[in-house]
């Protein structure tokens, strides 16, 4: 029975189920298979704060969204073409964004009394016609899985755990995916429990065959490979990219990489990842708290490591005092903030960009530091690498910003050639004749890096104000003003080596959309759409937030309107307004969710119409 295959340019699909249902696993596997098939992809894992929230409840729903395509895409998609709902709660939480006439596959076995209650359904939505505007496929997955596994005579608990692979098998059939990679994954993942290998393989194949054999789906779909630039690719989450970028910086600088960190969602994976690579001379230190994490990082920088610390917003708040010390002692290190929803504990598993002002000002006194933000999962590699390069060149801590959205999101990454990575030259001071702790390089204003153990360079530094050149404690008024200015100028000077800002679109016009960080993908899509509609809309993306590029003021001045979308209440926009006195318009979204490009398009429309 061969059914028709329809070709689609792109597909967005969302798996949703209980946190115990293994949605992240099968979603991720579909992403991998899609990437390996040559699609461009964007993913958005979205899970609850609880480890295992109570089964069947609304807050317990875990979702994994995947966008795969035959062309270059920038986001995990918005409305889905297909939704796989493993229980009523998953349906309830996600149906809103399923496209009209979209495919809805529901595990009908889970739509029973208690589950319906927990999801606050009075009636079974699969049966009361309320889902008529979708292509609803009610599949008794639990039962079918159990049938598929009959021969293995496993406990019903174990069997139940396999239904996610049954669902994946169905999706594989639906989108004409090969199962090879998934088979490999199952074999590797359960290698220590052979009975689970068999069970999950049977479930996967069961789901696939079920579609093959039944009349459920009239059509299946395919998405052709995207035309990506030639090269070797792999799939990468933002957090893994950060880890790899840091290791690369360690290798290229020739320094041991020190990571001082305290676990916190959504940054912990960087610690996990780095702790695996001890043979790259990575020394991970899980500190007693964020203050110790920061301080150990300072100690490591002082004694000549490539020093790194990772955390999320509340951790940065705790590190503030010590960051001030790092700034005033002018030691090189990178502070990574994987931002999450705030304030306070906030929404730990959700995304936000509300820590930008904290990056600028979250400590006492005049304490400027370079700030640099990654735009998408794969960009985390290059951006963290750049952060390390700047830190060492200018002898300064650098703040690197990511967020939950790109940290957990994944996309194909063209693996760079190591030889093509920028050099990170390190020149430790050695010569007692020419050495003074705060004697600055004329060009970079950096002070020398003299590490303990170097004969003849014994010296003292600290958090009290220091005399220029000698570094001795000084409370001289003029000296304090001078040193304050030097610290600021050193950071400001970095602007002189920044590349020209790339303008997507015309370099003057009606609307310029200015983005930073993870909003890049949604902005790019929205602006592309607007341009396709012939609108005078351009965009720039700012990677370097402090200092800002030298050409920025001029660019802003060439547009009638400047729009600044941010996942906060308007932070970056105020920097632009204060510095360039342009009436830039804030457009904030504070929902713990990334922007949809449609929201941006609508906002741009509104501005275009207002004129």
């Amino acid at each position, binding site marked *: 029975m061969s059914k028709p295959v329809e070709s689609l340019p792109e597909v967005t699909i969302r798996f949703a189920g209980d946190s115990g249902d293994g949605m992240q696993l099968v979603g991720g596997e579909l992403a*991998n298979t899609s990437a390996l098939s*040559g699609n461009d992809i964007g993913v958005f894992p979205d899970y609850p704060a609880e480890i295992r929230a109570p089964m069947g409840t609304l807050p317990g729903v875990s979702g994994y969204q995947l966008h795969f395509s035959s062309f270059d895409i920038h986001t995990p998609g918005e409305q889905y073409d297909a939704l796989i709902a493993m229980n009523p709660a998953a349906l309830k939480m996600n149906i809103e964004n399923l496209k009209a006439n979209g495919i809805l596959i529901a595990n009908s076995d889970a739509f029973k009394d208690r589950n319906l209650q927990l999801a606050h359904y009075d009636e079974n939505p699969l049966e009361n016609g309320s889902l008529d505007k979708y292509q609803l496929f009610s599949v008794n997955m639990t039962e079918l899985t159990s049938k598929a596994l009959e021969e293995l005579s496993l406990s019903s608990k174990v069997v139940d755990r396999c239904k996610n692979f049954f669902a994946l098998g169905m999706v594989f059939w639906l989108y004409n995916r090969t199962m090879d990679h998934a088979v490999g994954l199952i074999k590797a993942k359960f290698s220590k429990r052979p009975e689970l290998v068999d069970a999950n393989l049977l479930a996967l194949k069961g789901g696939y065959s079920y579609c093959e054999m039944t009349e459920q789906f009239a059509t299946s779909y395919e998405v052709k490979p995207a035309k990506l630039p030639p*090269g070797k690719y*792999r799939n990468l989450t933002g957090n893994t990219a950060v880890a790899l970028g840091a290791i*690369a910086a360690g290798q290229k600088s020739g320094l041991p990489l020190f990571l001082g960190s305290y676990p916190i969602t959504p940054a912990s994976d960087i610690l996990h990842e780095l702790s695996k690579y001890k043979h790259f001379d990575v020394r991970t230190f899980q500190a007693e708290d964020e203050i110790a994490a920061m301080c150990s990082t300072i100690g490591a*920088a002082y004694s000549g490591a490539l020093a790194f610390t990772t955390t999320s917003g509340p951790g940065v708040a705790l590190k503030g005092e010590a960051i001030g010390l790092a700034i005033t002692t002018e030691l090189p290190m990178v502070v990574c903030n994987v931002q999450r929803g705030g304030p306070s504990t906030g929404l730990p598993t959700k995304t936000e960009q509300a820590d930008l002002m904290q990056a600028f000002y979250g400590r006492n006194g005049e304490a400027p530091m370079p700030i640099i933000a990654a735009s998408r999962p794969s960009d985390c590699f290059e951006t963290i690498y750049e952060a390390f390069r700047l830190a060492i060149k200018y002898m300064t801590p650098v703040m690197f910003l990511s967020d939950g959205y790109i940290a957990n999101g994944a996309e194909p990454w063209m693996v*760079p050639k190591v030889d093509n990575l920028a050099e990170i030259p390190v020149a430790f001071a050695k010569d007692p004749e020419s050495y003074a702790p705060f004697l600055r390089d004329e060009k970079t204003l950096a002070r020398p890096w003299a590490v303990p153990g170097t004969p003849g360079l*014994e010296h003292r*530094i600290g*958090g009290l104000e220091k005399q220029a050149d000698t570094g001795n404690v000084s409370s001289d008024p003029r000296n304090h003003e001078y040193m304050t200015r030097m610290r600021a100028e050193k950071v400001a000077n970095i602007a002189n080596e920044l590349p020209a800002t790339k303008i997507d679109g015309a370099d003057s016009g009606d609307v310029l959309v200015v983005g930073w960080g993870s909003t890049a993908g949604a902005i790019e899509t929205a602006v592309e759409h607007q341009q396709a509609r012939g609108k005078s809309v351009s965009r720039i993306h700012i990677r370097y937030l402090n200092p800002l590029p030298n050409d920025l003021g001029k660019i802003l001045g060439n547009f009638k309107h400047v729009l600044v979308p941010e996942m906060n209440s308007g932070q970056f926009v105020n920097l632009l307004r204060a510095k360039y006195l342009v009436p830039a318009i804030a457009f904030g979204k504070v929902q713990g969710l990334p922007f949809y490009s449609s929201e941006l398009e609508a906002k741009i429309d509104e501005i275009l119409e207002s004129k």
Partner: protein
Amino acid sequence: MSTQATVTGSNGPTELKLSKRDFESDQEVRWCPGCGDYSILAQVQRTLPKLNNPKENYVFVSGIGCSSRFPYYMDTYGFHTIHGRAPAIATGVKITNPELSVWVATGDGDALSIGGNHFIHLLRKNLDINLILFNNRIYGLTKGQYSPTSEVGKVTKSTPFGSIDHPFNPVSMAVGAGATFIARAMDRDPAHLQTVIQKAHDHKGTSFVEVFQNCNIFNDGAWAKYTDKQSKPDNVVYLEHGKPLVFGPNREKGIRLDGFKPVVVSLTNGTYSEDDLLIHDEAQPNSTYAYIMSHMMDDPELPVPVGVFRSVEKVCYEDALMGQVEAAKKRFGKPDLQALLESGDTWEVK
């Protein structure tokens, strides 16, 4: 810290010929005249030349407080950091370069109030760092508030009606936190202080040294009972490994253990001789022994022990860490960055 391999150049260790002078920086010492900190500085400067470590291998890290000015006066590498965090910063230094001889200078407020957590975690992790606690039972630098070692009832700027906190016993705390080396000395006994500093250095693992230090401005005489010629013999007992606990102006008193309780006995009424006394064993693996010694301070009937309470071996954090690094290198071979970047599932786009 017992690495002597750090001596660079072709001359053997004994050739270093360093003197106290070599460890004096060009910075003017800015403690109040009469402050006990001077003595601690001098004893460190006198001890270091004996250790056959070149100057450049010493790092002194401190927090904030009068005592934390210490690094400025040492002609070694020095880092005057922020309040309470010196142990954490020293940890980063030591992990990065385990060859260095890393010292922490700290006060009772710095180490036990704001820095209490880093203090106990350092002891737990047992990095080979030497921590000297300048205990003057007061906040000196901020001009006289009570500290976590101040006695109940103490009238200070922040406690005009007397303090109501029960003080910490720093040595008991250290035992409870799992410290491998614990000692006590006094600013007013320079020779003994030097011995203790040397032993702290020689110990591999975190060495915690509490020093009774007089702040003559804000808490003058806090330790007078133990340091004044007259009262000292009755109130201080020197701990010496393998020797009985004897004290008194004429060494006429001793300590025996009654179960787990130390008791004072007379050596002159014929009942007991030195052979009957508790023999000090700093290497006693069971930390209860050190706890018993530490607790003597809380009993006004008993003399206060000074010297090395405990000195036992336990894996150092940095050794274990570097061990894992080496093992990984052996197991996974020479690091290949390109291969790492290309690991996992990859595909070619042509």
